[in-house]
């Protein structure tokens, strides 16, 4: 018989410095969130399965831990926070004055291969904002992300910023069978120029459209990318996306923070719920993204109230790998007391507000 001395794959236990570091990182990030008036919300560990499917799409369906309650409802352990919070914003908090600013921190579960220090159970900390005006709330969320990096003593971070609407505007006008569209999107997602060329060879597109698609993997860099993109696309949705990104970029330029932003119009990954900007944050030395976020205006409406929404989350497991190793590993401040008078002394120290550890 298996004695189950090992914990299940994909779970982990944080002890000592690892646990202290988790709480220290969490506290620092929370202090930034609080500074921007985001209010913590502690949502349930599980909810109805379809709550998550509404936002994440069928792509993630197979990676959700689900179970059935006594009434036969299908429930799911939360695989992310955004759907949960969008539901609350659209229901219980629907009468709150807008914008509503919420923050959260906790574990989520996804049945997928552990990668980059992120297990099947991993910790996210993040914010969501509902009902703000598009540009200011996009900028605010990006700024909170940047300030968190600063607060954690990580000066060297890069955020790549794209827009679902840019490639959405291009794909709206492409009338192809789903399989072909998926193939095209896959080639773009991997910036696979050779593969893209092969697909374009056999598609009946005019030269202009081919030129646009061929350029997408190269539309990454500084503000010049937006100029290039504007000369390339003709549809309104893509052009509005470019205007919007330009506005955001110029605000960060004014703040002296534009060096942290990379425009990446070839970024087409993301949950189905994204509807405007989307971004991912990277730090040198770590092969995986440490934060991601974006706008998802359509999601709250799925729960009964249409309200614009934008947010992001950090992977705490990954942040912990890049913060200063000393963080959260302070001296043990327990005071030793001798056995005979120990209890009395311990009580005296405690009454002075000191932490005591009895050593025998």
């Amino acid at each position, binding site marked *: 018989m298996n004695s189950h001395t090992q914990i299940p794959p994909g779970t982990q236990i944080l002890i000592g410095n690892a646990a202290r570091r988790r709480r220290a990182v969490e506290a620092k990030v929370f202090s930034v969130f609080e500074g921007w008036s985001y209010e913590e919300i502690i949502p349930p560990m599980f909810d109805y399965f379809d709550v998550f499917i509404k936002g994440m799409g069928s792509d993630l369906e197979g990676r959700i831990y689900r179970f059935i309650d006594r009434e036969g409802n299908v429930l799911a352990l939360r695989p992310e926070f955004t759907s949960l919070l969008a539901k609350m914003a659209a229901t219980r908090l629907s009468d709150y004055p807008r914008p509503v600013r919420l923050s959260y921190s906790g574990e989520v579960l996804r049945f997928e291969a552990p*990668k980059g220090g992120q297990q099947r159970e991993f910790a996210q900390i993040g914010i969501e904002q509902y009902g703000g005006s598009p540009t200011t709330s996009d900028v605010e969320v990006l700024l909170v992300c940047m300030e968190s990096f600063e607060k954690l003593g990580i000066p060297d971070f890069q955020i790549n910023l794209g827009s679902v609407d840019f490639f959405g505007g291009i794909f709206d006008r492409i009338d192809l069978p789903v399989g072909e569209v998926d193939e095209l999107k896959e080639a773009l997602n991997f*910036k*696979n120029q050779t*593969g893209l060329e092969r697909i374009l060879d056999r598609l009946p597109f005019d030269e202009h459209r081919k030129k646009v698609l061929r350029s997408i993997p190269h539309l990454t*860099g500084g503000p010049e990318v937006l100029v290039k993109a504007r000369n390339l696309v003709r549809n309104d949705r893509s052009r509005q996306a470019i205007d919007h990104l330009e506005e955001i970029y110029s605000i960060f330029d004014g703040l002296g923070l534009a060096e942290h932003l990379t425009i990446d119009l070839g970024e087409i990954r993301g949950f189905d719920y994204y509807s405007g900007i989307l971004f991912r944050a*990277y730090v*040198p030395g770590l*092969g*995986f993204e440490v934060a991601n976020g974006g706008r998802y205006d359509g999601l709250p409406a799925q729960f009964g109230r249409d309200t614009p929404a934008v947010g992001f989350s950090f992977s705490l497991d990954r942040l912990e790998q890049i913060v200063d190793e000393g963080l959260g590993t302070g001296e043990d401040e327990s005071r030793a007391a001798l056995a005979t008078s120990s209890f009395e002394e311990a009580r005296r120290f405690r009454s002075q507000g000191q932490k005591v550890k009895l050593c025998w």
Partner: protein
Amino acid sequence: MLVIAIAKGRFLKPSLDLLGRAGVRFDEDVASSRKLICDSEDLAFRAILVKPVDIPTYVEYGAADIGIVGRDVLAESRADLLQPLDLGFGHCRIAVAAPKGFRNADETDHPTIRVATKYPSITLEYFNARGIPVEIIPLSGSIELAPLIGLADRIVDLVETGETLKENGMEIVDVIAESAAHLVINRASYQTKRSEIVGMVESLEALV
């Protein structure tokens, strides 16, 4: 410094040749040295030599920024990597093959056909898409042997000239995909070392 993962084996020489033409030269003879890490003279590049199947792992984790790897290995790994360029060497096919005369017979003979391969993911995806139940028999080499001694009904393997298949009395039933050497890039490195990497992609693109 850009860390480049290069596959030991048949890709080693053409990879080094191509990198050399792109101006990436290492100060010693990487191919004949037993060293696993070699730096370029100006310290702008570092080569690490690894087994081909490990390249997607090194690059996905960011232990290497870029790598050169066959599409077959890349597809099998399912690694989430940027993969901008086909590098124009190492062409071959990932194919389903069966003993001669058994092209169609086995699907009706066995309710579940047995397929020997070192590409279980690619194989499963191919047969799943066609609704054919398969039992994967994972092997790491001499795949052609499996049908000959009754271990499997078919194989999914890399075919370069088709000579080995022919000599073992087998033929190609279907080609799943073409494979060639491909340039792959870590997604985070692409953001944090963008100018170096874009420069590298452009100079390789001009050569292939």
